[in-house]
């Protein structure tokens, strides 16, 4: 946290100074009042009244002016702090690998970036300053009280004991409850997100009552924890209210007796009570500040849980830029395991893809095709062995140059809430209109021109809903628009109808002629694009060869593609 606070040290210091000066001005007022009561009032001297009253006015205005200064500075500092911390959190999250995001819900991350950061901002702008200011105020007032009349000061200072006692107990219990409330809020957000994004499935199965029940259950848990937290605060606040009240009572009793004995003037007593009143707010606010500090501590803990995760996939020291690539891709004894899995997703895979060659990956669901594809742009890193591009280990290349050389289309085509153009130029913002049009034409995505605002139409979650086939064609266009040296395509044509598929294939064949490509394939039809085929089973590479060779030699291969032995070109069911 400290590096983020450091740039704001002058502001924080100014806030503390302004607050302390305001306290000083506030302290002056009762002293002047004492002089009014003991001086002009006691002597019946109206003349001397005006300057003293003006002094009270001046001190009052100074106090508010300083309070204004403090809060004005606070606005800039606390929000600036929050903003830079949030920017860095976002940057860090973007740098964390896919494996991290597989584990974390975006709801959990969002509550860290928004709710938790807001809590910390409040603490920095308010709690932290007043923790210092209130302590100083308390000490100052008590010191002043000792000078006025020691026995009364002792009574006032004594009030610290129950206060400290109370807040200690409160701290412990509040910490536990507030953490629970925050976690349960995160759970509820996750449920809301799932219900919103999965609404079609929920409707299709008529499971609204089920998910509503789950949501109500989680909302009830949050309700109970929040009520518990509210009760805790209610009890604490009322007790914390009681302490200054009892202190004031003690001051009245002891003070009255002292006035009776002539040890204290009436003006002194009035001033004393005013001073004790100044202590009321610091004492009362203590509860809020402590709660805030606890919350901020929990929130900071949750945020640093993320910050402390070191991006496992990053530029290594001495990583080199890949200026241009011939597209020679090689897998050397590659083994890969998902971070928290025990089983190998890939093991002992050796594969050599020649520049310009299109290699299809064939295998059953779960055979490791997708895992293999994610290793090329380093969405995951190999567990053992190496992936090399132009003879260089991809881990020794800068991520940006590697990913510039590798274009990707996933089986689950994700579009962002942005214009079609922005989505297509995702990786190549400087591509020309011509390149863009070529990519659109190749992917048979001309439908984009018929959208309400053409290429400027917003798609994705917040925009126009497109069909699976349309999204898939956009994803394909996005992968090829920059003409990368290596293309990694995961079942790129699965959602297209036969007619469109044939058109895409024809156009894609031209693109693939001068790129190296790895294409995961489920259908024999897409194999038309491939020069060679690699056959995977259970994470192992069983064979590499042309489709004809594999189809002739391997029954398992034929089974995976659903083709007949005698007529390797035909699909069994249709023929």
């Amino acid at each position, binding site marked *: 946290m400290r590096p983020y606070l450091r740039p704001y040290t002058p502001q924080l210091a100014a806030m503390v100074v302004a607050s302390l000066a305001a306290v000083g001005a506030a302290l002056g*007022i009762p002293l002047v*009042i004492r002089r009014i009561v003991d001086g002009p009032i006691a002597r019946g001297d109206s003349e001397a009244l005006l300057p003293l009253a003006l002094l009270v006015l001046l001190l009052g205005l100074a106090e508010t002016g300083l309070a204004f200064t403090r809060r004005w500075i606070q606005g800039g500092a606390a*929000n600036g702090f929050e903003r830079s911390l949030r920017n860095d959190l976002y940057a860090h999250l973007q740098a964390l690998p896919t494996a991290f995001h597989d*584990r974390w819900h975006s709801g959990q991350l969002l509550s860290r970036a928004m709710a938790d950061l807001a809590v910390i901002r409040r603490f920095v702008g308010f709690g932290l300053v007043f923790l210092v200011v209130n302590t100083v105020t308390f000490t100052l007032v008590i010191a002043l009280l000792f000078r006025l009349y020691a026995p009364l000061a002792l009574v006032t200072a004594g009030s610290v004991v129950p206060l400290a006692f109370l807040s200690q107990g409160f701290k412990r219990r509040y910490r536990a409850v507030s953490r629970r409330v925050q976690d349960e809020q995160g759970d509820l957000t996750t449920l809301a997100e799932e219900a919103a994004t999965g609404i*079609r499935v929920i409707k299709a199965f*008529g499971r609204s009552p089920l998910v509503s029940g789950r949501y109500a259950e989680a909302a009830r848990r949050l*309700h109970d924890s929040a009520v518990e937290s509210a009760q805790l605060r209610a009890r604490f606040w009322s007790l914390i209210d009681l302490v200054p009240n009892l202190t004031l009572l003690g001051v*009245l009793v002891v003070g*009255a007796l002292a006035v009776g004995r002539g040890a204290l003037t009436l003006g002194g007593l009035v001033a004393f009570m005013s001073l004790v009143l100044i202590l009321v707010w610091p004492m009362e606010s203590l509860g809020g500040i402590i709660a805030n500090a606890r919350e901020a501590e929990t929130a900071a803990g949750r945020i640093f849980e993320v910050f402390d995760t070191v991006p496992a996939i990053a530029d290594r020291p001495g990583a080199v830029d890949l200026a241009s690539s011939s597209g020679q891709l090689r897998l050397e004894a590659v083994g890969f395991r998902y971070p928290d899995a025990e089983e190998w997703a890939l093991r002992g895979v050796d594969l050599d893809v020649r520049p310009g060659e299109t290699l299809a990956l064939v295998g059953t669901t779960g055979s490791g095709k997708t895992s293999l594809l994610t290793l090329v742009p380093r969405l995951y890193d190999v567990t053992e062995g190496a992936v090399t591009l132009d003879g260089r280990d991809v881990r020794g290349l800068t991520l940006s140059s590697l990913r510039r050389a590798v274009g990707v289309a996933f089986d689950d085509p994700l579009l962002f809430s942005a214009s079609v153009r922005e989505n297509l130029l995702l990786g190549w913002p400087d591509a020309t209109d011509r390149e863009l049009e070529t990519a659109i034409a190749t992917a048979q995505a001309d439908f984009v021109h018929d959208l309400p605002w053409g290429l400027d139409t917003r798609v994705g979650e917040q925009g*126009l809903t497109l069909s699976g086939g349309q999204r898939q064609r956009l994803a394909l266009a996005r992968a090829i628009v920059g003409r990368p040296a290596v293309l990694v395509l995961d079942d790129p044509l699965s959602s297209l109808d036969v007619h469109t598929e044939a058109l895409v294939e024809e156009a894609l064949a031209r693109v693939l002629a001068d790129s190296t490509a790895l294409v995961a394939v489920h259908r024999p039809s897409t194999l038309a694009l491939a020069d060679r085929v690699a056959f995977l089973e259970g994470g192992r590479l069983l064979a590499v060869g042309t489709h004809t060779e594999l189809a002739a030699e391997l029954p398992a291969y034929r089974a995976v593609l659903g083709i007949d032995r005698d007529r390797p070109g035909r699909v069994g069911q249709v023929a």
Partner: protein
Amino acid sequence: MSTANPATEAWRGVAAEVLEDAKGGLAAFLRARSRRLLGSLLTPHRRTLCWLAVVVVLQTAAQTAGPYLVKVGIDRGIPPLVDDGSRGVLLLVVAGYLVAALAQAALTAVFVGALGRVGQDVLYDLRTRLFEHFQRLSLSFHEKYTSGRVVARLTSDVEAIGELLDTGVNQLVFAVLSLVSTIVVMFVLDVPLALVALGAFPLLSVLTAWFRRQSSRAYREARTAVALVIVQFVESLGGIRAVQAFRREARNQAIFEQVNARYATANIRSTHLAALFGPGTRAIGSVTIAVTLFVGAHRVIDGATTVGVLAALLLYLRRLFEPMQDLAQFFNSFQSAAAALEKLSGVLEEEPAVAEPAPPAATAVAPGPLDVRFEGVDFAYRPDRPVLAGLDLFIPAGETVALVGETGAGKSTIARLLARFYDPTRGRVLLGEVDLRHLSTPDLRAAVVMVTQEAFLFTGSVADNVAFGRPEASRAEVEGAARAVGAHDLFAGLPEGYDTVVGTRGGRLSSGQRQLVAFARAFLAAPQVLILDEASSSLDAPHERLVQDALHTLLAGRTAVIIAHRLSTLDVADRVLVVDGGRIVEDGRPDELRAAGGAFARLNEEWAASVGGAREA
């Protein structure tokens, strides 16, 4: 709504919703609607709120007694003490003060605690009502409204109302009551001095009115900005694979920093407004105290009032202005809660386009296989673009029908109408003899299940996700369903078998694996009518073959509609319908149609050619 420079926002693209939001002038109506929602939320708590009002009045009385007792102590308790050392009055004052202080503490605890509970009850009520309402609303709504906005309604908007109930109401109640009680007591103590103190009020109300206007604007801007931050955050991290693969991080960072800066600026603006308002009221307070002191001291000198009264008045004045500053906080939370209420009441007044039948009209379908009939069905997503016109279709009970045709031909629309995701604009869809519109949702969903291409998985294990088809199913039944679709070995072979947690949106499974889960789910649901919309597109051949074997069993005795681009799926179909431009152009058994040399035969040839295998090396 957006005030940002259009040039820097161009990447966002244009969407219909932006144009919708630009419409205004509904403010008054919106407010009435919000009030109705608030009223309906608070009505169940009327009685609690009533006795809480009594508690808070008592609490205020106890609180107000304090300074008055101080005054009595100074004016009546101290003189006898000074004169002859008698402590009687002082002791009475002490006892009174003690009682008042204890009562104040107890009543505060009761009030804050009970109000906190009411607030949480209201939030719970609101959350569940909203959630259920979103579930009730039709797909046509969700397609327009987008999930990001649904989540925002359920989280940040509800929290804004929670904030108001949690602290805002407390602040308002205490501020108003201490204001009223202080004014009353001041008048009782010394009328001229009270009048002097009241002189501050015109100034205060001008300041407050100004602040309210400004902070209303500032808060709207802050909420717009925070929504942009949230969308950017959730979307880009949800799609982190694409972000990283396309080196989008820097651009994302720039966009995020821009929206985040806008959010910070909005926050700074509202903090600065509060910085003007809070100390502003205090400045007015300081002037009032100084003037009261000046006038009061004169009156004490003239013998018109006592030192005790002056001391008490000064104590009261402080109490008058402190809570006023809290009102700044209250206005802030009030503004955001009002904006949230506006949006929430709008959503809650949305009626589902596909309405639940009125209870007397609800009819049950007969058990066993059902026939399906489309009678003169017209349908359009947008009025100017008809998708189906006068469609007639009869599917006898137990028949499996495949819909074939190019993208956009209307296949999915037929499926969606049959699943009653939409209602026809004209004509009707009958299940057995019952119009779909007359079936209750539970009956409809028990009878008709649709499996779509996007196999959505929920947080939880593979078993949980399969059991989504029939939540009361035992583990054995779940495994039985997986076996039936040929996925048992695959699921059992996952790291923790059926208990493997699937990760965010099923991220730990491949799309093929996700589709198998969806299939097992549909199998377990065992509906009378099953619709498969491209459901097997991501399956590899062996799995698809397993699924097709399973389909033979599954579809036996069931009515089924299958949409597939892959003609291999047609293996299980008794009958093929070729759809083109929203019309059925061919209808017959697959082999008949293949032989007939029409559109289906052509499609079939294209398909056969496209699976012609790899380029010969």
